[in-house]
Structures are given as structure tokens and as C-alpha cells.
């Protein structure tokens, strides 16, 4: 075995209150899934708001969604899906004890996340210029129909909260990158990496719903 022992006859990563590594890992994963559950419900509130306002203003939603750049949204979907693939492959490489490859895949994931945010920045910048902003800050004059500011309130809240999660995910992935280079993970212990992956896939999952609901209103 390659993993270090702490002198008590058990691996260094194993906390004293767990009977073995497997129990510790499944407890950690259980906690992560409970956290992801709360994340789903956090975004769920925004999805409910979206459903209500779209049901009340179907024509306005249709007209307002044309202001979004569908090409950029599609590219960002590709970018985020690719980042999910690289994240999954980073964990797989760690399972195979291939740490150099893990580092490369984590860097690739970070780069994809950065590209996503840069594209999002250009989209936001364009909307700020046009005054397509939430609530009372809405000054755009090019849309007829009632209450188009509601669409942009929902757009900014949903993509904004998602964007914050992408930034948080980049922080986590950067931390995992640091810990991998410090040789703190092994095929026997890579739980933090796995949990970061779960979080990152959830961020991808939420975008999978945001993209058609905001950019592809038929």
C-alpha cells in the first residue's frame, strides 16, 4: 500500500470516529448529497418563480427571450458539459493513481469554467449597455408588451446565482488541484475530489435546465 499511516495502524486520512475508510467515505458522500438536495431546492424557488411569470406572460417571455444570444448560450452549454467530462476524468485518473493526468484534467476543468464565465461576462455586459436589467433598473426601450423587466429579473437572478456557483466551484477545483499536487490524494482516499465532482456536476445539471428555459423558448 502506498498511503501513509499515522502510526496508529490506520490510514492518515481516517478520522478516529469512523470504523473504516469505507464508512468515512460514505458518510461524507451522504452529507454532500444532502447539501446538493438543499441546492436543488434553492434553485427550485427560482424555477417556481420562472414558471409563474412565464404562465402569466407567455408572449412577453417569448419576445424578451429573443434578446438573449442563443449562440453564446449554446457555446456555454458545450463548455460546461466539457468541463463536467474533464472533472469526471480527473477523478477517474485519481482512481487509477495517475496523479499527473488528474492535475491536467483539473486544470482543463478550471479553464472551461473560466471560459464559461468570460462568455457570461460578455452577455451581461451587452445587457448592461442596453439597460436590459432587473426591476426598476430596466431602461431598454426596444420591447413592446407588458412587464418585460420581469423576464430580465428572472434571467439575472437564475444565471447570476448559477454564476456564483461556478465561481465557488472554481475555488473548490483550485483547492483540489493544490491538494493533488501536494500528494494528499490516492486511490485509497480521494473523497474531497469526488465530492467536488458531485458539486460541479450539479452546477452543470442546473445549466442544462437554465439553457432551454431561458434561451430556447419556443
Amino acid at each position, binding site marked *: 500500500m502506498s498511503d501513509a499511516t499515522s502510526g496508529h495502524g490506520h490510514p492518515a486520512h481516517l478520522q478516529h470516529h469512523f470504523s473504516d*475508510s469505507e464508512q468515512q467515505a460514505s458518510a461524507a458522500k451522504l452529507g454532500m448529497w444532502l447539501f446538493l438536495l438543499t441546492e436543488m431546492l434553492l434553485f427550485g424557488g427560482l424555477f*417556481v418563480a420562472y414558471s409563474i411569470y412565464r404562465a402569466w406572460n407567455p408572449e412577453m417571455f417569448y419576445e424578451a427571450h429573443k434578446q438573449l444570444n442563443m449562440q453564446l448560450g449554446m457555446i456555454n452549454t458545450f463548455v460546461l458539459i466539457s468541463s463536467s467530462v474533464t472533472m469526471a476524468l480527473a477523478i477517474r485518473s485519481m482512481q487509477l493513481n495517475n496523479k499527473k493526468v488528474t492535475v491536467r484534467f483539473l486544470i482543463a476543468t478550471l479553464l472551461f469554467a473560466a471560459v464559461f464565465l468570460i462568455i457570461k461576462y460578455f452577455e451581461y455586459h451587452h445587457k448592461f449597455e442596453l439597460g436590459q436589467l432587473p426591476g426598476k433598473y430596466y431602461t431598454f426601450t426596444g420591447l413592446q408588451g407588458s412587464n418585460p423587466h420581469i423576464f430580465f429579473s428572472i434571467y439575472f437572478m437564475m444565471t447570476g446565482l448559477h454564476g456564483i456557483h461556478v465561481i465557488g466551484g472554481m475555488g473548490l477545483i483550485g483547492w483540489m488541484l493544490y491538494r493533488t499536487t501536494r500528494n494528499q490524494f490516492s486511490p485509497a482516499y480521494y473523497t474531497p475530489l469526488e465530492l467536488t465532482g458531485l458539486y460541479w456536476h450539479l452546477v452543470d445539471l442546473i445549466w442544462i435546465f437554465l439553457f432551454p428555459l431561458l434561451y430556447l423558448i419556443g
Partner: protein
Amino acid sequence: MSNHTSTPAPHVLPLRLYLGVGAALLFLTVVTVVISQIPLGGWNLVVALAIAFIKALLVVSFFMHLYYDHKLYFIIFSIGVLTLSVFIVLTMFDTLERGAVYDIKARPINPKAAMYDKPIFQSQGDTTKASGFAAPTDSGAANHDSAGQAKPSGH
């Protein structure tokens, strides 16, 4: 009690599986974009959501390993999906059918809110305030119901 040093070998999925799922997700993205360009009426939303659910299922099953993991994690995830469905469906029953029971009159939630002080919809003229939700004027502040759009469109 199991051996303290025992560390189970990780369940490694084949590389081709990850790449295949990734390719399927990219392909489904293209499909959903193409279909969204074809006018299908109400079916556009149904198809877009159906494809999104297939993509979500792929991500959850393979990237998040729910297909292989202990059932407990799947149950937790399902509780989230179920709760969210109840949340959305019951809210939609209310918001879409309320007009069948009561005569709905939209009115400002807080007539003193800052957003009603200034004309925010310049396209509709300086005198128009919040579109649809015309704020009560100083003189007629008491009569909220006379101002405002009657009910959600679609009825």
C-alpha cells in the same frame, strides 16, 4: 469489525463510458437547439424539457455515479426531485386556476415602493408608470382595484 487498514478498490468506470456520455450530452444539446427553431406550439416546451430531463438523467447516472452507487444517494436525490415537482405543480394549479374561482385584480404590492415613483417604461410614454401595474396617484390612492391589469394573460 473489518480490518482498519482495508481500503476497497475504487469502482472505475471505463473511459469510453465518460466520453460516450459527454458526446451524447453535446449531441442532445444540438438536438434541443434545432428543435427549438421549429415552431411546434406548446410542444416546444415539452420537447425541450424532455431532452433536458434525459440529459440530467445521463449526468446524474454516470457522472455522479448514482447508477452504480448505494441506493441511499439515489433516494436523497429523488426526494429533491419529488419535492420540487410538488412545489412547482401545486403552485401552478393555484396560479393558473385561481381566476376560475375569484375575479383576480392585479394591484401594486406596495404602492409606496420606490419603483413606482419613476417612469421605468420610457417606451410607453412618460406618464405611464409600471406597465400593467399603474401605481395609484396621490389623489386616488384608496382605490387600488380600479388600477391595473385585470389578470394574467392567457385567460
